[in-house]
């Protein structure tokens, strides 16, 4: 029989999250003895040529985190044309009718749900610390250029509002770039305009967009005792923060399971190719709150 070869395409190959997914998928490859081909597909065109490339080298299927969910139909069509099995991870394909593409197996996290978890934790912490909502400013680090990020921040904000957080204390801070410096600069504007708050809470689409805001707050003299920042991904950034001797305003991050997304998808795809076992239509994973106290166990 032919050797199994599986592709794993991700939208931001430089990001730690995807590095992790790749690493865990590689473990599955070792365990089951198939070949894994890792390719970055940062935009639609690159994804399409990556699929061609996979077909050329005789792969039988691939897993993909697409740079845009609306690329779903094109990716599916391309895969079918080349006789490749396809499964999506992280972000689910959306068809031309705007509905999720049920026909493509998916393992993912709901961006909106993660955001809600961030919001819930913020509420919980504020209550625990007995903060008066009236004294708290809320920095939402937004990045409209990427829809998934927007869904996450929206989730967090919605929860806060449901819990009675005053709407006029919500400060959307649009970032120009999705990195720490972009977050730093964006946060500074909000702080300039609203110098009158004693306490701050911060939410963002990932860890780096919260860290920059934390640094900006530190620049204005706000520290661990009057800032609660919560990121997403539980990446190295967070570990670095937690390893600092002094506590910082970065309280927690939503740790997503890169292991499941990487290892299990690869495993499912392997079994699909090898034994014809179709993967479940959809698998949802959850995020876990990772703080200074539990980060070592969660690793």
């Amino acid at each position: 029989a032919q050797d199994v070869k599986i592709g794993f395409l991700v939208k931001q190959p430089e990001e730690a999250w995807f590095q992790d997914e790749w690493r865990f998928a590689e473990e599955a490859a070792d365990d089951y003895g198939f070949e894994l081909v890792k390719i970055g597909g940062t935009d639609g065109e690159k994804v399409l040529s990556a699929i061609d490339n996979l077909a050329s080298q005789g792969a039988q299927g691939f897993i993909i985190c697409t740079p845009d969910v609306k690329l779903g139909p094109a990716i599916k069509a391309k895969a079918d044309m080349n006789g490749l099995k396809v499964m999506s991870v992280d972000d689910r394909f959306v068809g031309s009718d705007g509905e999720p593409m049920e026909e493509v197996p998916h393992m993912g996290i709901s961006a909106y749900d993660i955001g809600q978890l961030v919001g819930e934790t913020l509420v919980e912490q504020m209550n625990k610390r007995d903060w008066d909502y009236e004294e708290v400013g809320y920095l939402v680090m937004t990045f409209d250029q990427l829809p998934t990020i927007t869904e996450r921040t929206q989730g967090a904000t919605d929860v806060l509002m449901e819990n009675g957080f005053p709407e006029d204390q919500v400060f959307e801070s649009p970032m120009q770039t999705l990195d720490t410096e972009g977050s730093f600069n964006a946060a500074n504007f909000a702080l300039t305009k609203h110098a009158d708050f004693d306490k701050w809470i911060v939410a963002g689409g990932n860890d780096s967009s919260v860290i920059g805001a934390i640094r900006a707050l530190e620049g204005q003299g706000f520290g661990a005792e009057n800032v609660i920042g919560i990121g997403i991904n539980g990446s190295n950034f967070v570990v670095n923060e937690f390893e600092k001797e002094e506590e910082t305003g970065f309280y927690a991050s939503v740790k997503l399971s890169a292991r499941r997304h990487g290892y299990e998808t690869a495993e499912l795809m392997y079994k699909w190719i090898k034994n014809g076992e179709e993967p479940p239509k959809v698998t949802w994973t959850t995020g876990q709150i990772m703080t200074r106290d539990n980060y070592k166990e969660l690793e």
Partner: protein
Amino acid sequence: MTETTKSRIKNLYNNYTIILIFITMFVLLSIFVPYFFTWRNMVGLALSVVTIGLIANTMMFALASGDFDLSVSSTVAFSGITTAVVINSTGSVWIGIITGLLAGVLVGVINGFSIAKLGLNALITTLATQMIFRGMAFILSNGRAVGISTAGFFKLGNSMILGIPTPIIIMVISFIIFGILLNNTVFGKNTLAIGGNTKAAELAGINVDLTKIIIFSAQGFMAGFAGVILASRMTSGQPNAAQGLELDVISACVLGGVSLNGGIATISGVVVGVLIMGMISNALNLLNVATFYQYVVRGSVLLIAIYLDILKQRSK
């Protein structure tokens, strides 16, 4: 060997080093990279350079005339989104395609007019329009991809002619057309003259402003065309499409011997430049080279290629 054959080979070598480099690379990759020299991969390789290739045609003209265009990447996204939005709202594929092309031409005309008539610096102007039209693409699409529901539109990007995907055929035809335009028409010669010595061209009565406006409009048209084809291939218009593409296109041209100072360009060089860029990525992926190392390898290959190319000028 006779004297003339010798000198002919020498001439070939001097003028076409980059082509020789390409051929050498191609042969080596075919031998050493598994799956590289297969029909399927050749098609995949060609498809992967369609957008760059289409735009390189007119970028060659812009560079040959001594200018620069950084706005093409946004134009691709803007016209793709425009096409998608218009198809969805009118239901007509043709109106959508034409509007998309016009959107591209619009960007080009603004660039051309600003640079030729107002005398604005090309780099800043096209960087500004790059921002403006990326913004327009985001605004029109509200930052999300616009899916297209009219399946007829997908033919442009996904059909085959004689077993070859249509986009590749379109690209090849465009190379032929722009090659003829450069070498065999007054327009092409005027472009090279303007880039080679603007003052001399002007004194000789060439309408420099008009030529530049035409070049930029054509550039906008081709970027728009590339955007439409891409939207068709992706069955949606994407506001984030083609980011950073402008530098790839310019690199392909420069690699192909187009002078950044204007006045020097050949279509064969540009074709080869585009292919080398595509070939490198293709081979790296086939070899399963890790992403981080791909950066290093791609940069190094680029350096080596221009170094070999310069050696010829030394040897002259």
